[in-house]
């Protein structure tokens, strides 16, 4: 189990351009590189002495120009294990689901990898196909190290890892890398210009709507970009009204509940009242925000790099997502680094995974900004994570207390496509919210059979 990285939904409406996302991952990688240097502990040296020379093949979402960043990460790891070399393979993709598909096709074509960089969307797919290695024996072998990591991991993440793991009960992924919840990134300047007080974490949809109307009237700025991105644009509205696309077990669709329909109606209302830019565009929400044309946007940890790059950290504060009544909510997703069953370098790959799970590694990753919040509580509360970040950054981790795991069944790539397509029609006004959500329900139900 791992982090929901910056590219949770790096589609047409994502906060960052694809290029920015790729750079972001690179920065994260560079951060972990430094972590490797710090992680040169005694046990590592012992393990290093036992490990045979190997070249670990690693595949990640991104373009080939990122290889340097990943190389830097591996160089750091090699300070601990000089006999281990890495071969990084980049696969450019629009989102994690498409990336998982591309990797699957490559594997079918005979490609050999040792370690994959996946997100929640591809986790079940690969476990279901039986191509990733159960880690139970390795975890048992390094029980002390893994127990320490799990003890420091948010209990809900551990719970999600077990609950949404493959039905065979085996462990294919360990908490490493990070996770992402959703929160509202509020531009203080726009609020000030509109003569409004900043919101509180208790703000409701009604408060949100009222603020948006005032902002529109007094500044002309948009309130929030309503998009058809599963993690960033759809799930936050559903979860903040106590709804989701599927039930807790991801076995039944729940798109046509009154709460889900209400969430769709609210999202559409934001578009109708022109509080959101017209959906379907290629606008950059962060750029709009910096220009003072957007009051807030939804995001996890990943916008911090763009905010830092624009020297705009002080312009933003992070709040819980506005909610309906008492229904505080957020989706959560996590990253995964499985070892392939066909790997001939299992021990070297396992050392790499262990290294990614260490507090030292996670600390450096958090400090560099990264694309996700850490899985480890100690790191999430540390200055490495909170420094040079907007006020309220700690809420990105605290959101785990009430977050809903983003439903990603085995056919998650197909359900995501169906959900985004119908939601896109709803917010564009092609179909009424109730009819749209019923249609979504039918489509997801068929896919879950």
């Amino acid at each position, binding site marked *: 189990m791992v982090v929901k990285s910056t590219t949770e939904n790096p589609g047409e409406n994502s906060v960052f351009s694809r290029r920015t996302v790729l750079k972001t991952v690179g920065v994260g990688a560079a951060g972990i590189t430094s972590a490797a240097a710090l992680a040169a502990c005694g046990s590592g040296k012992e393990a290093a002495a036992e490990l045979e020379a190997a070249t670990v093949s690693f595949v990640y979402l991104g373009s080939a120009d990122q290889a340097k960043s990943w190389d830097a990460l591996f160089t750091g790891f090699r300070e601990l294990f000089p006999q281990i070399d890495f071969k990084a393979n980049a696969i450019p993709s629009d989102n994690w689901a498409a990336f998982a598909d591309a990797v699957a096709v490559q594997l079918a074509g005979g490609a050999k990898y040792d370690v994959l960089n996946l997100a929640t969307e591809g986790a079940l797919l690969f476990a279901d196909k039986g191509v990733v290695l159960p880690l139970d024996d390795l975890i048992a072998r390094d029980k002390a190290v893994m127990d320490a990591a799990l003890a420091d991991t948010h209990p809900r993440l551990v719970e999600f890892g077990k609950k949404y793991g493959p039905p065979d009960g085996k462990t294919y992924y360990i908490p490493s890398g990070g996770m992402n919840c959703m929160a509202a990134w509020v531009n203080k300047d726009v609020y000030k210009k509109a003569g409004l007080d900043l919101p509180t974490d208790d703000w409701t949809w009604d408060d949100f709507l009222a603020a948006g109307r005032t902002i529109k009237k007094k500044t002309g700025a948009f309130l929030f970009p309503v998009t058809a991105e599963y993690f960033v644009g759809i799930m936050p509205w559903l979860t903040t009204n106590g709804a989701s696309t599927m039930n807790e077990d991801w076995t039944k669709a729940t798109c046509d509940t009154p709460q889900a329909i209400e969430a769709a109606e609210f999202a559409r209302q934001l578009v109708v009242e022109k509080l959101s830019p017209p959906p379907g565009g290629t*606008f950059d929400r962060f750029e709009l925000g910096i220009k003072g044309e957007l009051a807030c946007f939804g995001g996890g940890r990943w916008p911090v790099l763009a905010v830092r790059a624009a020297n705009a950290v002080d312009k933003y504060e992070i709040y819980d997502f506005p909610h309906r009544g008492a229904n505080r909510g957020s989706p959560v997703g996590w990253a995964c680094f499985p070892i392939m069953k066909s790997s001939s370098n299992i021990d070297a790959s396992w050392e790499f995974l262990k290294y990614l799970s260490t507090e030292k590694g996670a600390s450096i990753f958090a400090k560099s900004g990264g694309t996700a919040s850490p899985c480890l509580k100690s790191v999430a509360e540390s200055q490495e994570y909170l420094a040079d970040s907007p006020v309220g950054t700690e809420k990105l981790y605290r959101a785990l207390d009430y977050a809903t795991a983003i439903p990603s069944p085995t056919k998650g790539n197909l359900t995501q496509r169906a959900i985004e*397509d119908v939601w896109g029609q709803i917010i564009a006004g092609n179909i009424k919210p109730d009819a749209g959500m019923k249609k979504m329900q039918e489509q997801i139900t068929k896919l879950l059979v």
Partner: protein
Amino acid sequence: MTLQKVRQKQGRFTPFLFLSPAILFFCCFIFFPLLGAFGYSLITWDFFTRPKFVGLDNYGKLFKDPIALEAIKNTFIFTLASIITHVGLGLILAVAVNRKIPKFFSYIFRTAIFFPFLLSWAAASLIWNFGLDPTFGVVDYYAGKLGFPQATLLSSTWALPTLIMIDLWKTLGFCFIVILAGIQTIPSDINEAARVDGASGWRLFWNITLPLCTPALFFVAVTAFIGAFQIFEPMYIMTRGGPDNATLSVVQYLHLTAFRNFEIGYGAVIAVAIFFIVLTATLVQFRFAKRWVYEG
């Protein structure tokens, strides 16, 4: 055996020797993959687990699959619109450019029409994505000013017509150049003789230009059908087949089925269906060509 007989025997193989590179290429990249597709269509396989022979079951599934039928319908609409617009507009533009206009304008015109054809579909799709952006798209903005629908890629009614227009912009240049070349091969003395006989401009076009450039029109119609029926990139990049499958093309559905849903057997059935549709349409076009194509 005499030397002459040996040479005769060797001579029989000479043409095949010259043809061998093309035959090898055809077998490796067309014929064997085609046989492979037929083979795959008889199994169920998800890339990872053991394939299972199911006979013709996958074919039965095709006719009961509403999304497949919708994709085929969309593709036929796209293809027919493509043929009509490309042949019609290509002919009009070719005739216009072929008239005695200053060379400078003729070059400008030809280049302007042909240039989009040189772009890759990926680049063209991204350009139009920006142009049609509902927030800051220039094309979308002026379309609204002129009373045309906006945010068309989000509309299940207008998304396909929008893609048809983009396809016309992108590939018209090829048809235009082929038809123009066809018109320019018409001997000028035929036109001059007709003029001496008192034929008007319209008469020249209808009785000389049009009949004599029918081979070019036929070529354009055949290639336009084959190309349009295999359309994939603009749908994949601009609309992802949506909204509500309104722009889902049959090749895109093949991709979704085989490489996202991992139903290799069923994906192969769709590939075989595309092959037979294109083959049938081409044979029909050739069959009817005798009725309207001038053969000299």
